[in-house]
C-alpha cells in the first residue's frame, strides 16, 4: 500500500458540519432577523422597520420581566454554585450510601420541567398543598407561595434550584475527583485543616467546574420559561413574568413579528452578558 503523503484533510470534510450548522442555525437566525422587522401572520408580512423593537421595549410587563429575569438568573446561579459545591464535597468524602445519595440528588433532573412545575404548584397550594399542611402542623401560619406577588418568584427559584442542583453537583464531583490526592496529603502533612484544604486546594483546582456551573446556570436562568409558565403563567398578574414569558405571550397573541423581535433582543442580551463572563472566568483558571 502506498504511503499517504498528504497530511492535511480536504476542506470538504467540513462540509457536513457547515451545512448542518448553516441550515439549522445561520439561516434561521438571518430569517428571524428579517421577520423581527415585520408584522407577520406566518403566511404574509408587512415591513415595519424597527417599530417592533420600540413596541417591545414599551411593553408594560417587560420592565418587570427584565428585573425578574436578572433576579432569577442571579439567584438560581448563586444557589446552584454554592449548594452544588457543598453536596459535591460531602459526596466525594468517605461516607457510606454515597452512590445512593448521588442518585437521589440527580433524580429531579430526570423529570420533565413541566411535570415538576405542576407537582410543585400543587404542593404550594395555599389551602390544600402539602407545604402549608406541614407548616400548619408545626403551628406556623400558611404561606401563599405562588399567590403572594412578593414571594411567588422566589418560590419558583427554589423549585428551579431543587431541580437543577443535581447537574451542578455532578459537574463538581467530576472536577473534585480529578484533583490528585497528593496535594491533600502534602497539605495535611504540613498541618492544613480540612477547611483550609477546601479553600486553597479544592476551590482553585476545580475552578473549571465552577465556571461551567456558573455559565450553565446563568444562561439557563436567563432563558427560563417552562418552569415559570407551568407554575405561575407569569402571574399573579405580571409579578413573575420573565423576558421569555413576555415573548411567549406575544407569540400566543399572534404577534409573531413582535415576539421574533423579542427573541432577537433576548439573544443579544444573553450574548452580551455570557461572552464577557465566560472570558473573564476562563482567564482565572489554572492548570491542575
Amino acid at each position, binding site marked *: 500500500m502506498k504511503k499517504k503523503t498528504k497530511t492535511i484533510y480536504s476542506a470538504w470534510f467540513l462540509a457536513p458540519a457547515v451545512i448542518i450548522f448553516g441550515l439549522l442555525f445561520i439561516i434561521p437566525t438571518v430569517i428571524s432577523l428579517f421577520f423581527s422587522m415585520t*408584522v407577520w*401572520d*406566518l*403566511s404574509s408580512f*408587512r415591513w415595519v422597520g424597527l*417599530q417592533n423593537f420600540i*413596541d417591545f421595549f*414599551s*411593553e*408594560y*410587563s417587560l420592565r418587570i420581566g427584565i428585573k425578574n429575569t436578572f433576579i432569577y438568573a442571579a439567584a438560581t446561579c448563586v444557589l446552584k454554585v454554592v449548594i452544588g459545591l457543598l453536596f459535591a464535597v460531602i459526596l466525594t468524602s468517605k461516607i457510606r450510601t454515597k452512590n445512593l445519595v448521588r442518585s437521589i440528588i440527580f433524580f429531579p433532573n430526570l423529570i420533565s420541567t413541566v411535570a415538576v412545575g405542576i407537582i410543585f404548584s400543587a404542593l*404550594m*397550594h*395555599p*389551602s390544600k398543598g402539602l407545604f402549608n399542611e406541614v407548616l400548619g402542623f408545626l403551628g406556623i401560619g400558611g404561606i*401563599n407561595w*405562588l*399567590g*403572594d*406577588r412578593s414571594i411567588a418568584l422566589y418560590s419558583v427559584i427554589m423549585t428551579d434550584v431543587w431541580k437543577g442542583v443535581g447537574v451542578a453537583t455532578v459537574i463538581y464531583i467530576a472536577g473534585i475527583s480529578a484533583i490528585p490526592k497528593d496535594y491533600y496529603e502534602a497539605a495535611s502533612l504540613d498541618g492544613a485543616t480540612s477547611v483550609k484544604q477546601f479553600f486553597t486546594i479544592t476551590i482553585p483546582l476545580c475552578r473549571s467546574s465552577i465556571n461551567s456551573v456558573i455559565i450553565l446556570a446563568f444562561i439557563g436562568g436567563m432563558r427560563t420559561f417552562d418552569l415559570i409558565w407551568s407554575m405561575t*403563567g*407569569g*402571574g*399573579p*398578574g*405580571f*409579578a413573575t413574568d420573565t423576558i421569555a414569558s413576555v415573548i411567549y*405571550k*406575544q*407569540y*400566543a*397573541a*399572534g*404577534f409573531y413579528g*413582535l415576539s421574533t423581535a423579542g427573541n432577537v433582543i433576548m439573544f443579544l442580551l444573553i450574548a452580551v452578558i455570557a461572552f464577557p463572563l465566560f472570558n473573564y472566568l476562563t482567564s482565572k483558571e489554572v492548570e491542575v
Partner: protein
Amino acid sequence: MKKMIITAVLTAALAAGTLFGSSVPAEAAGTDYYDETVTLSLLVDQDWLNTYEPALQALSDAALEKFNIEIELENKTNGSDGDNIVKTRLAAGEMTDLLIFNSGAQFTALNPNEYFVDMTDSSFMENVDENFKEAVSVDGRVYGIPVTSSNVGGIVYNREIYEELGLEIPRTWDAFMSNVEACEAAGYVGVLGSCSDAWSSQYTLLADYYNVQAENPRFASDFEAGKAKFANTPAALRSWEKLSDLGGHLNDDYMATTVTDGFDKMMEENAPAHFPMTSQFFSYIEMMYSREDADKFGIFPIPGDQEEVNGFTVWMPNGLYVNKESENAEAAMKFVEFYASEEGMDIFKENAKADGPYLIKGVDLPEDSYQGVLELQAYFDEGRTSLALEFQTALKGASCDQICVECISGSMSAEEAASVYDDDCKKMAQQLGLEGWE
C-alpha cells in the same frame, strides 16, 4: 376523586347518548348516504367537551346512521395555549376537517378567509341568528354555525344565602356592594375569586359592557377607530373601578383558586355568596353535582349606577368551522348542515342544557332549562341585552386577563389598569392594521 366521578358521569351519559343515537331511524338514509364511511376529524377543547361531549357524541352517532359520516374527536387545551395550537396547526396546514373554536375577536384573529369554508350562501345560514353571524364574519362573509346556546355574563349568586339574609337582587353597584358586606357580616365570603385561571377574572369587566353601551352607544366603533379609550371614557373606566372594588371581598386563596376549585367552593358550607361568571355556571354545577344544586343559584346582571339601566351582556357560543383544505370538506359541510338543522338541534337539546336562548330560528329554550336560565328569557324579550364588546370589534387586548388580575389584587389602581389596557389594545390594533392607531 371528583375527577373519577365526573368521568363516570360522562361515561354513563355517553352510553346513554349512544343508545339514543342508535334509535334514530335508518330509513332517513337516502342519496346523502356515503357508500364508504367518511371519517372527519374534529378539534375541540377539553373544557367544552366536559359539558357537551354527550351531545356531540349523539350528533355524531346520528350522522353515522344518516350519512355514514364518523366524527373523530381530537382535544386541545383551553386558553391562550389552546389558541396557539389552533394557529400553529392552521399555519402548518395540519388542521382537522372540523374545528370548534371561539367566535368573535379570537376567531377573526385567525384570518378565516384563508383557512375556512365560506358558508355565507349555504341555505342553512338563513336560520342562524344575525348576531352570531356577525361574530363569525369577516368582510361580510360568514364562516361558522353556533354549536350551543348563547350565554350571558353576570354575577352568579346563591339563592339560599339571599333568602336567609333577606337580600334583594341589587339594581345598582352600591346596592351590590352592601349585599356583599351583608353576606360577609353573616360569615360568608363576599365574592369568589378564581384568579389562578386568569381568564375568569375578566367577567366583571367584560359583563359590565351593557352599562357602558347604555351610556355610550357608539363606544364599540369609536374604540375600534382609536377615538374612545377605556381610561378617558367615564362609563368604561367605571368597569375597571368595579373590578377593583371586588378586591378585599374575595376568598383568601383567590390567587391559587382555579375555576374548577371555584365550583367546588360554591358548594361548600359558608360558600361564597357571589361569583362573576357566565350562565354556563349552571351546567358545570349540574355536571359536578346535581340538577337541584344547579337550581340553587341564580344570575343577575352587573349592576350599573342607575336602577333603570339593568341588562345582560351576551356572549356568543363557540362556532363550528370547516377547514378549507380538507379532503372531506363536502362531508364536513353536510355535518354542519345537519348540526344546524332542526333535527340536529333536537338531538343536541336532548343531551345538553341551554345556557341561554338558542341562536337558530325555531329552536326554543326548553322548559326544563335551569331556573337561572329561564329567568334570562325576560331580559331577551324586553331587549335588555347587549352583545359583549369582543363580538362587536376584533380589537381585544391580549393581556386583558393579567391586567384584570393586577387590578383585582390592588397592585394597579383602576385608572392605571385602564390605561395599561389601552396600551395593550394599541398593540393589538397595530398588529391588526386598524386605522387611526398610529
